């Protein structure tokens, strides 16, 4: 495609006299374009290598995994299904906690806090995103786990008749705690997008609303939230994508298990795909590695789809945005 679009470049770029710049242009353009293409190649390579190693596991029957101790004589799908459930469960918990929180933070920064303070506060929230996940794991064990213990105990004794709250067992190394740690980790990602969208709300909409005598909250309901709806959805999906793939926090906080149930407060019931890979890959034999890579491929496809849809919504929205 280098030749095809050269014509558009030349009138602006070529010097008036001589060809001194043309070779340089070609080379520079070539390097830039191939860098862009290389990124696509890397992404394709990720999928290709995973698929190549996962293929034997995906097509094998149960007997092939008899020697893989962590699969406990199950077929690949019987083994992966609880993991998929655990992954989704922890992410959904994280999302339920994080989205309202992020909405509040986004609104606070964009419409409540004074301008200068808002910048600083935005920076504070961004700092959360910079903290390594392994440290969130430590924090989850050391600080969050003892903190939620009385709350979980209370839930289990008083609301235990609801299945999801029953059978709490201390210590709180359960999927709920893992979900809460994940929630803290995805808040900055969701907030960043939401804040951006809220700041783009057309000023005239807001002023029109206020001029009609609306309170600040009514103005937000009438102007900001409807304008930002698709942004909120895609931000949540970005957060979901992150939560699905987060490894260390789940690995450190959750006591793993392969059950299919919704006992959110009982340890030893669930495990996520990512944490499962991290805990078993270093010691796995060849068949085990194939199975783990197959589970990784499933995770990759899943997060890829979620992120793709989220980005698609964002991009589609940008064209209609009243702000430009």
């Amino acid at each position, binding site marked *: 495609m280098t030749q095809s679009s050269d014509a558009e470049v030349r009138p602006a770029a070529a010097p008036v006299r001589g060809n001194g710049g043309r070779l340089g242009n070609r080379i520079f*353009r070539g390097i830039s374009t191939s860098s*862009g293409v290389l990124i696509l190649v890397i992404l394709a390579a990720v999928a290709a290598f995973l698929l190549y190693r996962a293929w034997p596991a995906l097509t094998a029957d149960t007997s092939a995994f008899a020697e893989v101790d962590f699969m406990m004589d199950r077929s690949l799908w019987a083994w992966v299904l609880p993991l998929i459930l655990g992954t989704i469960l922890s992410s959904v918990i994280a999302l339920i906690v994080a989205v309202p929180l992020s909405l509040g933070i986004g609104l606070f920064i964009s419409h409540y806090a004074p301008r200068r303070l808002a910048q600083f506060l935005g920076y504070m929230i961004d700092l959360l995103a*910079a903290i390594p996940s392994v*440290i969130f794991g430590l924090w989850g064990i050391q600080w969050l786990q003892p903190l939620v213990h009385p709350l979980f105990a209370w839930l289990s004794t008083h609301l235990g008749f609801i299945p999801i709250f029953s059978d709490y067992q201390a210590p709180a190394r359960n999927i709920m705690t893992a979900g809460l740690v994940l929630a803290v980790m995805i808040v900055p990602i969701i907030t960043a997008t939401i804040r951006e969208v809220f700041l783009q709300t057309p000023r005239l909409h807001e002023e029109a609303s206020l001029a009609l005598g609306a309170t600040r909250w009514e103005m937000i309901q009438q102007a900001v939230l409807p304008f930002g709806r698709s942004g909120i959805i895609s931000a949540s999906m970005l957060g979901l994508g992150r939560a699905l793939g987060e490894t260390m926090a789940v690995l*450190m906080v959750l006591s793993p298990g392969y059950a299919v149930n919704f006992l959110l407060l009982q340890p030893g019931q669930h495990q996520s795909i990512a944490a499962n890979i991290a805990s078993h890959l270093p010691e796995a034999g060849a068949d085990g590695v194939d199975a783990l890579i197959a589970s990784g491929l499933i995770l990759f496809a899943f*997060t890829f789809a979620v992120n793709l849809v989220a980005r698609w919504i964002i991009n589609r929205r940008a064209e209609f945005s009243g702000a430009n």
Partner: protein
Amino acid sequence: MAVAAPPLPVRRHRRLPRWAPPVTLLASLALAAGILALFGQVTLGGLFALGALCYAVAITVLSRVVEGPRWAKDRLATALVTVAFLLAVIPLITLLGIVVGDGIQQFSWEFLTTDMVGVFGSMASGGAFHAIIGTLYVTGIAAVIAIPLGIFTAIYLVEYGQGRLKRGITLLVDVMTGIPSIVAGLFAYTMFLVVAGPDYKAALIGGVALTVLMTPLVVRNVEEMLRLVPNELREASYALGVPKWLTIVKVVLRTSIGGITMSVIIALARIIGETAPLLITVGIVQSVNWNAFDGRIATLPVYVYRQYAQGGPSADRAWAGALTLIIIVMLLNLIARLISRYFTPKVSR
């Protein structure tokens, strides 16, 4: 969309005086402290939760009586939004608090300059020198590949790209920022498994894994910086007969060099704490491995994880390692901030 009825123009609204919210807040906190003291213990968390609840109820009721239901709703929303924000800051503060508090005990010059050779069982000595070297190697390899690749891709997207290829790359780079780190690790692991066989272990594998994570970050941030360069500068350069590539190098890149450096450092800070991909690719060792192309290597995040998993006195080393990691990340972020403040050209927006 239904617009609420305009307010009655004749009568001015009765509003709560300015001092009402802070006074209500203090009263709520006092009430919460009282209730907690009655039931045994006053904890900071309990005080915050109960105080916030009391405040939200009190201000809403007060406002409803004095100002009417619409303003009461507004007061309630303000309270909830503020609480949401404070809730998000709590993890940050407690996290920094416990990492510094627990990490400072073992953290010393000796910790930074010794490795784990000859440290057994309950011995309290030993440090993270080997892990720091390993982290430098792995992130260094990632940086060497990801920085040029990312910058040139950003140049393509801003200066050359058009049509479907540009849209495709933009979309996929965005999607790539969401790749789980463990998948990036699996990719590097699998690639070297296929290409070099199962026995090959090296820092290089971890570096490749981090490259997959770092490149999209560099592209997105640098792209943003290049877009900030005003078109007038490019046009002025073309008008003087400067070829396009020289314009990019001498005008566009030079104008945004501060921003580009900042983007790169922020991307580095992001990947330097990645644990999962390194856990499965490079593992952990006890001593310094000076060779990036052969043998396992220790890295700081994996060191923290493994030391914590061992428990006992190792946990102290884990916290000291975590403190080291946080200091590095914060330093990088600080440097990036300073660079952006002093070197980025002022662009009116």
